């Protein structure tokens, strides 16, 4: 049984047909890396999985929570899905710890003391226990992104979506974020990452998804796909990256 099941997914922005029938299944604990050229629909696909974008046709099921065209109540889905953004998007008026505590207290009504404990655990997990009381603008980009991961994890999601989470970082800060992700993967977290880090995708990914013009053009084990692309488009994309 797959944890995430996407079937016949279509999405338009006005007359721009951005997702043209996506079918994708993700098993529990699987690490999926999504690659593809800019504008191929990677972010849009990720954003539909937690209801940040509405869908026009098809179905998304995450651990029993469903999304169809026209659905208004997105809460059940969002409770199952965490997301980390390229630009971190920490709440600037709250400390790192408060950022992590906010959703558990507000959404899940977790008692403060318990939420604090969860937050401390998550901050320790991303290696930032000592930054609990720092404000976002007192942290480096890499640290902010790790807090953003801790914030998503504090809601105990079944799957974590990461949209180019190292793209806004200085090169020397990329690894500290990737190593957190690697550790999550090793702990069995289900991950869907849009990434340009091909080496990372190859090392950590269980499945590689190549998006091309709004479709899943090729999918399979990363090593096989990189070594032996079945389509010209993937071959040329891999060529252009390396």
């Amino acid at each position, binding site marked *: 049984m797959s944890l995430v099941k996407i079937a016949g997914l279509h999405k338009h922005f006005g007359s721009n047909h951005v997702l043209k029938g996506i079918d994708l299944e993700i098993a529990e604990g699987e690490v999926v890396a999504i690659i593809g050229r800019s504008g191929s629909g990677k972010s849009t696909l990720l954003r539909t999985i*937690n209801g*940040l974008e509405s869908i026009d046709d098809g179905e998304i099921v995450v651990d029993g929570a469903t999304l169809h065209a026209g659905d208004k109540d997105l809460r059940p889905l969002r*409770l199952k899905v965490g997301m980390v953004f390229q630009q971190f*998007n920490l*709440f600037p008026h709250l*400390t790192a710890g408060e950022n992590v505590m*906010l959703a558990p207290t*507000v*959404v899940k009504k977790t008692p403060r003391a318990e939420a604090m404990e969860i937050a401390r655990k998550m901050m320790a997990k991303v290696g930032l226990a000592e930054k609990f009381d720092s404000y976002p603008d007192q942290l480096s980009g890499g640290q902010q992104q790790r807090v953003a991961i801790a*914030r998503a994890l504090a809601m105990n999601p079944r799957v974590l979506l990461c949209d180019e989470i190292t793209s806004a970082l200085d090169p020397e800060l990329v690894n500290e974020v990737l190593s957190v992700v690697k550790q999550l993967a090793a702990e069995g977290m289900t991950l869907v990452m849009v990434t340009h880090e091909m080496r990372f995708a190859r090392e950590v990914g269980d499945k590689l998804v190549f998006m091309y013009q709004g479709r899943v053009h090729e999918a399979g084990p990363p090593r096989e796909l990189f070594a032996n692309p079945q389509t010209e488009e993937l071959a040329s994309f891999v060529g252009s990256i390396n």
Partner: protein
Amino acid sequence: MAYQFEFTPVFEHADLLLKGAGFTLALTVTGAVLGIGLGIVGAICRAWQLKPFNWLFGAYVEVIRNTPFLVQLFFIFFGLPSLGVKMGEWEAAVLAMVINLGAYSTEIIRAGIIATPRGQLEAAASLAMSRAETFRHVVLRPALQKVWPALTSQVIIVMLGSAVCSQIATEELTFAANFIQSRSFRAFETYFVTTAIYFALAVLLRQVLMALGRRFVIGRPA
């Protein structure tokens, strides 16, 4: 012949001036708390386009911003009784100030709300926070923080504008000054002292509001 300054007749009524200044402050504080509260509600309706309230608040803001405060006050105090709505001069003055400040702060706070970066809203949504939860915990404080200096200035403008409440015999500072002037015939001295008091009140109020902003709105050590 040179004018002989004579402040004694003014200071003989120091108690009236003090009481008037107290009234002005009380009027301003009440008006500010309720007016900013009204402004937050108005700003939410406008920013979220909650029909029909966004339209109602839009019309309200336009009417208030394009008419004189004195006329608004007269309308409430002299006009409304014709419809059977009667109130004392204190209530009328407070109501006029709330309505006036409410309109300006609706626009000021709305500007703060719509300046919220989209990424903040998306992060909150991805954490399964509802729109109301997002507003309360993510949007409101940074929005108020951004516009707090503008709100502070508006509160001071309203405090200075409250002088016209003397026209309906609200016993605030200007009312006291007019009374003292009419008894002492010392216009220069009376209004000189009154001006100084308004100035001091405005400076004081600005300091207090900025301190409040740092403490409650910004809410973090600088």
